[in-house]
């Protein structure tokens, strides 16, 4: 589904990713861990198409198509979703309005009719319940005055509405208490299928107790230096990055 080959990128001429490789197949969950400043969030942004970053070498293929030059909204229409580490606030735009536009723009790109407001609302209610969120949430302005935990839940809520093929979760677990973490993990698990894939960026093994990854990668200084099964996360917990990245 996602194939990244020898990816180099810079921001303001400073190299961040330095020859990164990653393969993600449909149905898989990959966890990416690594010390601060290793390039985890950059990787997420580059896959999503943030033009702050300049890709200087390598390929990002999604569904067998090179998406390096594709606008972020077109990547989204193909099924790429990024759960932001720091979701932005858009005052005056309600959550329901935002999701309605997002869902229908995606449908339009894929040649589908817009979803009716009634169907949309039903779908929203269903997903809100799954994430144990109150329906008053829909009329609040997007992330405006949300607590850290609410912002993260809102990301997962949007994911549940957009049903992406590839979801990248950038530190969705930070700022969540243990109850919220379980709810979010439950939301992610309920979306898992053989058709889609997840890339989970996290600092903590904690989240991986609830969302079982198929692979764990360690990212250091702009490249993946070690890949293994879920046991790598446990090992990391014990030894720390220094113990693993020699």
């Amino acid at each position, binding site marked *: 589904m996602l194939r990244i080959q020898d990816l180099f990128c810079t921001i303001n001429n400073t190299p961040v990713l330095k020859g990164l490789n990653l393969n993600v197949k449909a149905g898989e969950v990959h966890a990416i861990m690594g010390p601060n400043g290793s390039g985890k969030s950059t990787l997420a942004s580059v896959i*999503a198409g943030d033009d702050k970053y300049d890709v200087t070498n390598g390929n990002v293929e999604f569904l067998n198509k090179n998406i390096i030059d594709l606008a972020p*909204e077109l990547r989204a229409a193909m099924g790429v979703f990024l759960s*932001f580490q720091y979701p*932005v606030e858009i005052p*005056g735009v309600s959550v*329901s309005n935002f999701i*309605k536009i997002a869902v229908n723009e995606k449908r339009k790109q894929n040649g589908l009719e817009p979803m009716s407001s009634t169907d949309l609302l039903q779908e929203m209610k269903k997903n809100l319940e799954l994430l144990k969120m109150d329906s008053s949430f*829909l*009329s609040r302005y997007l992330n405006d005055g949300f607590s850290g935990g609410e912002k993260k839940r809102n990301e997962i809520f949007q994911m549940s509405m957009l049903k992406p093929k590839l979801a990248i979760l950038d530190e969705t677990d930070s700022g969540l208490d243990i109850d919220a973490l379980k709810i979010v993990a439950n939301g992610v698990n309920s979306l898992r299928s053989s058709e889609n894939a997840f890339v989970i960026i996290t600092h903590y093994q904690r989240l991986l107790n609830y969302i079982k990854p198929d692979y764990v990668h360690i990212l250091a200084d702009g490249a993946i230096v070690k890949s293994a099964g879920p046991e790598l996360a446990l090992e990391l917990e014990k030894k720390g990055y220094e113990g693993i990245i020699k």
Partner: protein
Amino acid sequence: MHLEHVDVEKVLLYNLIFMLEKDEKKIIKEVTEAEYKYGFVSNFDTDTISPGLNEDIIKTISKKKKEPDWMLKKRLEAFEVLKTLKQPEWANVEYPDIDLQNIIYYSAPKKKVQLNSLDEADPELLKTFTRLGISIEEQKRLAGVAVDVVIDSVSVSTSFKEKLSELGIIFCSMSEAIEKHPELIKKYLGSVVPAKDNYFAALNAAVFSDGSFCFIPKGTHCPMELSTYFRINEAGTGQFERTLIVAEEQSYVSYLEGCTAPQRDENQLHAAVVELVALDSAEIKYSTVQNWYPGDKNGVGGVYNFVTKRGVAHKNAKISWTQVETGSAITWKYPSCILKGDDSVGEFFSIAVTKNHQQADTGTKMIHMGKRTKSTIISKGISAGKSNSSYRGLVKINRNAENSRNFSQCDSLLMGDKCGAHTFPYINVNNKNSIVEHEATTSKIGEDQLFYCNQRGIGEKEAIALIVNGYCKEVLQRLPMEFAVEAKNLLEITLEDSVG
């Protein structure tokens, strides 16, 4: 649930998006490419007098309009006042002195303008309506909006008059009102904005050629939105229309105005006066979408929009101004409320968008005279390109206006780094038990906000519309539904280029 409102808001915001683009380069590119779409000139047969301003010209105007002597006298008095006044220079706008002798003060479509149905109208005139996107038939069907269209100086069409007259509501051109309702005009015209108020008000009082008059009798709730379109067509003409709305005790009216002008290299002057009188417990809602020609990307041409708008609210009455200002080379406009009666309420909701070399100095004045009077000011400025936008507002609470309240919020949104936003609040409180609050913010559309929207599949234009929409929400939701339909029609042509 808010879902149902989405499309209406989107429609209104489309007129904003063509000038708001992701980054500076694109802003300038898009903005310069997006051409003004109402710039066509219609070839009616017109009755136009020679340019210049003197007593004879004023007499000619009055004579052409077959006015009674008392009206001519009022005009000449105003002209005397004008001679003693100077053009105001305090606003944060720059332009060369306007030579009043170069302006044509009267121009009217020649064809007899009193119409009973659209079939009688000049086909060229109907074509103009179509190009403006205002199909009157369609409006009748859609919204039941009564429309008065003022082209150049003369009111050419009103509809729904009969239906309104059954309720005792008068809605007609100013000329007709002078002829048929002289007692009302004598009593109220100039009672809120006297000729001596300011230079442009005096000019207007001397030379105004038409406008709209609206009278709502005691206890009557006007069942439909009343609406006027203004259009300057003839070259070298100024438009000096005069609007007067009188709402008697316990009555209600909502009034809408829209404006466009052809694209010309010269600057055209628009100096209108709007007066509102809300008697005890009456409510007047006045909404404007101002889309005069703003000039080209180099700042050549465009309308000078120097307008005096003011309302008096008597006991327990309410006056609410809502404006969306997107056009004009220069806007100089301060819709104001004199809160004369106890417990009266004044509101001002404004969105002002400037781009290219446009200048806007706009705001409001809230004069609290009665006890327990309340006013709210919400101003949203959006600046792009090399434009300058200023909010200028006065909140004055007189000594006797005990326990009065004002809340002001002035926000500015900047697009790119060559534009400016300025806020000039004047606050004058003369008693100890009133409360005045003022909040102001300045922000930029963030790259982060745009990328967030993009990542959710929302493209740039949509995303900007969405963000600006959110920013303007408090004002947009004040506009009547019918206005959304009209605004869509008016703005549709603008859209064609920017979206396609």
